[in-house]
């Protein structure tokens, strides 16, 4: 139960005196089902990954219908996320995107305002990451591809993966082991360096367009 608050904050008119809330930024971690998104988030997060749920109401399709009664089913989409405090007042959140393609519209919400994305790929099922690559390319959100090296996976070079994914020279490809914190950290730093490069490139283009 909630205990009675011992100290009462000032009235709403004092809004200005409230200490500034930390600035929060986010990076998305996408990829096929079971590729290690939550493992990556957990490896670098300072907290155990938390889960939020979104309830979706679908008109029931294919459920055992009771004659003519319109059924609605509620689907729960879970998203795991972790946190990295960059400094006092600046916090980075890592969101794992829902694995199933039919939750695209959730991606729109998730990618709104995101700095960039990590697309995790599994060499045994490379095609699973195509939808995420397409999505971020269409949306113009910069991303890196992290190739999670499973023990029984095939041995490819980053260059071979890049060709297979047809991402051109744009997105960096990093081989990684998402269970390792150092490896997860490398994926993220590669992404942020890439974001800086993209940002500077855009600035140059803006200047030369003037």
């Amino acid at each position, binding site marked *: 139960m909630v205990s009675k608050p011992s100290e009462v*904050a000032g009235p709403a008119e004092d809004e200005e005196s409230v200490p500034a809330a930390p*600035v929060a*930024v986010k990076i998305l971690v996408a990829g096929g089902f079971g590729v290690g998104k939550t493992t990556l988030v957990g490896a670098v997060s300072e907290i155990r990954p938390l889960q*939020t749920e979104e309830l979706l109401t679908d008109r029931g399709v294919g459920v055992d219908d009771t004659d003519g009664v319109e059924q609605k089913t509620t689907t729960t989409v879970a998203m795991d996320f972790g946190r990295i405090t960059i400094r006092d007042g600046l916090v980075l*959140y890592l969101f794992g995107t829902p694995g199933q393609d039919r939750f695209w519209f959730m991606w729109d919400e998730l990618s*709104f305002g995101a700095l960039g994305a990590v697309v995790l790929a599994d060499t045994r099922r490379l095609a699973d990451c195509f939808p995420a690559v397409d999505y971020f390319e269409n949306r113009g959100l910069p991303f890196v591809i992290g190739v999670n090296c499973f023990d029984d996976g095939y041995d490819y070079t980053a260059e071979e993966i890049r060709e297979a994914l047809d991402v051109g020279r744009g997105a960096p490809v990093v081989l990684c082991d998402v269970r390792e914190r150092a490896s997860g950290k490398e994926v993220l730093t590669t992404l942020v360096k890439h974001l800086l490069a993209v*940002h500077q490139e855009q600035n140059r283009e803006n200047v030369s367009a003037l």
Partner: protein
Amino acid sequence: MTGPGSQWLDDEAGPIVRSYALTRGRARPATGEAFDMITMVSTVAQPRSGSPGIGPEHLDILEMCVRPQPVAEIAARLRLPLVVVRVLLGDLLHHRLIVATRPQPESGTLSKEHLLREVLDGLQAL
């Protein structure tokens, strides 16, 4: 699990009170605020005792957000779906008990670069 209503559920299934009962059937916040997942929520006032429409879940949020929290953490820690938390936050905002700080929009080019460098430094220091 094979679907809703098909089996007897344990604690894993979550609270016995239906989510929409907490929001009194509302699916959208009373205010226009969209409450992005990383919008920061800060408690700025406590309700007068017996404020109509303020329930235990609202009080939980107020207690939690004495230190500013993002919407996603509020939902995760209260184990409530985002859609429900957004409605509750809308109520609190309507009563002016919280302040919502949206994620920084793309402001000046310099500040974006500065922000990215700070994030990079922070990650490298992990």
